[in-house]
Structure formats: structure tokens, C-alpha cells
């Protein structure tokens, strides 16, 4: 075997042996297909139990049939996520965890082996934990979000499942041993939030939000108690709301800013202008007076940590700068997001 190139490989692979299944085995498998009723132990039960079970199966089949129009078929984890998992990363909303150890991979397989998933259109609101699976090449295989509810989101699709079925896994994984370090730095946390706003991933965003104060949105830096404040658990469904809110007053015009949350994020928050690559300046814990609106962030949130992303707009005018400030406060030793404050040139 000396000459080795691509066509050599193809040629040899295609001529590898492809034996047929032995006659006996063929017969055996075919009989099993035609006769297999239920898993082994079941057969040992008496005729009465068998009849009862048959009725139950008919009942289940009827239910399945009724539900089939709602795509309610049972799936296992390995049917949805196929491939060999090599690394798992995750977050419980406060800390990040990562591991490629056999113990963790095995714990994941054991925890997921028996989970049965049924696709659903219901969007769950409280999926505050997430894990990401990677294959051997470091490619992302799946994004999984879950919480205390009997629901799970895998790669954007929602499934119903049993209550907290991944708990056996997270009890082992979300521990000091696999934590990637202390709490994320303020800067990293802010980058993460900008990224989640860009992706409109409100489920994940929720995990960063202050549990008691919720998340306040202000279109200008004179933050007040009148600004729209969304409770933490309403964050996941925020962008689906069709109701309009009054977010503040338009600078210069004096008319109210009335729009849906989704439109507000697109028109006022504009996260795409404030990614680490797009922002011109990023200031941490430094309030800069820009424009002529008084900045009341620290009046409203004393001892808050702030990260301001500033985009100075186009070079030929000084009137299209914008900024976005993320405001954090401490909650039980964790840094939690309390406000998203925007600012822009005003006459």
C-alpha cells in the first residue's frame, strides 16, 4: 500500500467487502419484526394483564392519533441530537461551566437516555439554564435551554418533557468543579447581553435580569420610575407581545414613543450598533455626560455598575451618535441587569 491519494482511497473504500446477513439471522430478524409486541418482561404477564394492556395501548394509540395533527410524536434525545458529544458547556445564568470529562459526558447520556420529548408550540417562559453540546471537531451540535418547568428548547424547537429531568445532570455539572472561573467580568457579561439582544434570545437574556427589580428600558439617560419595567419572568415572551407600550417622549418633538417591545428594541435599543466591533468607545463604570439630557442613572440606581457602548455615527455629522448603557446591580452577590438605557443626539 504505497500509492495513496484521494481516488486511491475512494477506489479501495468502494471495493471493501459487503457481506449479506446470514440466512438464519435474516429469518430471525424478520420473525421478530412480525411478532415483536412489547419489551420482554411484558410477555410473562397473564392473559388478563395482556388484555388490560391491549386496551391501554388502544387508548394510547387513539390519543396518539388524535394528537398526531399537532405533531405530538414522542422522540428520544438521541433522535434529535445525533452524533458523538465531545464537550459540554453551560450556564445557570450566573456562572459558566464547561467539561469534556468522561464523567460529565456519561452523566449527560445517563440523564438524557430515558427522556421522552414531545414537540410543542407552547413557548415556555422560564428556561433560565442552558447547555451547548460540541462534537470532536469543536462544532456546535446543539443548544439546549431548560429550567424548572417540564419544557425544553433544543435548537429553537420547544418540547414537552417530564419535570426537571435534566436535574440529575445539572446537579453534577453546575458545580464548582466545572465552573470556568468566578463570575463573568462586567465587560464580558455586557458583551454577552448585547449578543443576546442581537439574536433576540430573550430566554437566555432572562437569566441575566434582576429577579426582583426586573428590567427597565429607557430611551434616554434621564431614567425615571415611569419608564417601562418588565418583570424577569415576562422577558422570554416580551418580543411576542403585540400590545404597544409608551416608552418615553420623543426628543425634540415631545410626542410619546408608542410601539411594541419588538419595535422598540429595533428602533431604540439597536444592539447591532453596539457590538464590541461596532462600538467606538466602551466605558465601564464611567458615566459620561453626552448631549443635553441629564444623566440620572446613578440617582436611580446608586452603586450600580454600568457599561456604556458608544457609537459616534458617521464622520460627516455630529448629530447621529448613539449610546447604550447596561446597568447592573448586586443581587445576593451576583451582578444582575436592571436597566437598558439608550441615548442619542437631541436638538
Amino acid at each position, binding site marked *: 500500500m504505497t500509492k495513496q491519494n484521494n481516488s486511491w482511497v475512494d477506489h479501495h473504500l468502494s471495493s*471493501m467487502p459487503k457481506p449479506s446477513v446470514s440466512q438464519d439471522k435474516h429469518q430471525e430478524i424478520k420473525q421478530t419484526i412480525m411478532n415483536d409486541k412489547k419489551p420482554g418482561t411484558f410477555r410473562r404477564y397473564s392473559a388478563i394483564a395482556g388484555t388490560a394492556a391491549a386496551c391501554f395501548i388502544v387508548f394510547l394509540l387513539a390519543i396518539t392519533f388524535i394528537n398526531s395533527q399537532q405533531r405530538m410524536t414522542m422522540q428520544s434525545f438521541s433522535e434529535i441530537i445525533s452524533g458523538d458529544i465531545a464537550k459540554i458547556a453551560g450556564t445557570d445564568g450566573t456562572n459558566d461551566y464547561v467539561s469534556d470529562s468522561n464523567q460529565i459526558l456519561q452523566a449527560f447520556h445517563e440523564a438524557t437516555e430515558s427522556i421522552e420529548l414531545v414537540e410543542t408550540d407552547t413557548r415556555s417562559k422560564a428556561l433560565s439554564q442552558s447547555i451547548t453540546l460540541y462534537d470532536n471537531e469543536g462544532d456546535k451540535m446543539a443548544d439546549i435551554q431548560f429550567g424548572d418547568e417540564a419544557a425544553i428548547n433544543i435548537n429553537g424547537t420547544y418540547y414537552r418533557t417530564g419535570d426537571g429531568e435534566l436535574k440529575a445532570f445539572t446537579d453534577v455539572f453546575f458545580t464548582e468543579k466545572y465552573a470556568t472561573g468566578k463570575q463573568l467580568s462586567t465587560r464580558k457579561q455586557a458583551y454577552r447581553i448585547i449578543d443576546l439582544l442581537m439574536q433576540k434570545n430573550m430566554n437566555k437574556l432572562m437569566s441575566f435580569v434582576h429577579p426582583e427589580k426586573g428590567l427597565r428600558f429607557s430611551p434616554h439617560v434621564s431614567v425615571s420610575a415611569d419608564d417601562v419595567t418588565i418583570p424577569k419572568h415576562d422577558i422570554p415572551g416580551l418580543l411576542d407581545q403585540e400590545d404597544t407600550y409608551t416608552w418615553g417622549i420623543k426628543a425634540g418633538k415631545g410626542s410619546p414613543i408608542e410601539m411594541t417591545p419588538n419595535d422598540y428594541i429595533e428602533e431604540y435599543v439597536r444592539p447591532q450598533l453596539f457590538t464590541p466591533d461596532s462600538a467606538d468607545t466602551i466605558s465601564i463604570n464611567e458615566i459620561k455626560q453626552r448631549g443635553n439630557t441629564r444623566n440620572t442613572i446613578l440617582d436611580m440606581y446608586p452603586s450600580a455598575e454600568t457599561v456604556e457602548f458608544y457609537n459616534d455615527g458617521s464622520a460627516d455629522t455630529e448629530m447621529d451618535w448613539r449610546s447604550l448603557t447596561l446597568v447592573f446591580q448586586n443581587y445576593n452577590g451576583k451582578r444582575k441587569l436592571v436597566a437598558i438605557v439608550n441615548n442619542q443626539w437631541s436638538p
Partner: protein
Amino acid sequence: MDERQTVAVWFDEYGNDIYHFLIYRVGPHEAEDLLQEVFIKALKRFHSYQKKSGPKTWLFSVARNVAIDEIRRQKARKWKDHIPLEKTKEPETNQSPQSIFAEKEEYRIIYQAIRTLKANYQDVLILRGIKELSINETADILKWSENKVRLTQHRARIALNNTLRGWDTHDKAK
């Protein structure tokens, strides 16, 4: 035709194809038993079969999941026995490649070389190289984009080539 008859017909038609996949992906020893598992699973999961992909690629997907589960079980057994996992010795079947590869030494060497590669490479070499499925079918089975199939196949060929070349040089040195 009811579900059983349909699956039985599929078995007649594609049983050998799935068997080949299992031989190369898990090993000749386990392949027959796993073949049965694949078709039992297909029967149980019959409701999740969507006609658009065709039974052949669907059965390959089921087979791949069965293979992955089996490999996990093998690994788990090894951890439980506290035997460290060594890549070069991974599947037990390497030491006993049965008569399937007895005809030519070359077969045995190529089979063993495939088994040392990473899972994605094995999948794509078996489906594209050995089973000669189309890029489209392979993408469907592996749930990859067609581009990923092309790229991974390209890398897998190089990896296989390098492994074989490595062994060749080693043999000559001896």
C-alpha cells in the same frame, strides 16, 4: 400494509445496507444483533418516519443512533471497569475482525484504519465511500449541510490516507 409488514419489506430491501453500515461503524461481531435493534426501533418509531426523506435514509439515521448508543455503552463499560480508554485499541472487534476481512489483508488494514478515525469521519467514509450514497442522501442521514458532507469527506480521506501511510512507514521501518 400495516407497520410490521412495511418494516419487514424495508428489512428485505435495505437490511444488508444497514448491516454494512453497522459492520464498519461498530464492528462485525455486534453488527447482526444491532441490525435487529435497528429494525425494532424503526418499528417502534414508525410514527416519526416522515415520507419526505425516504425509508432508506431514515433507516440509516436510526442505525447511526443505534451505533452511537452502542459505542457509548462500550465506552461506559470501559469506564466502569476502570480501564483507560486508548484510541488505538478502541473497539474490541479490532482484535477479531472475523472472516469478513479474511480474504485480503488490505481489507483488514483499511477497516482498522477507519475505526481509528473520529466519529464524523467514520460516518462519512462509510456512507459516501463504502456504501457510495449520494451527497444528498448522506446530508439527509447525518443532518448536515451538503457542504459539510463534502468538506468532512475531504478531510476524512486525508486522515485515512495519513493513517494508512503512517502504518505503512512503520511496517517498512520494521
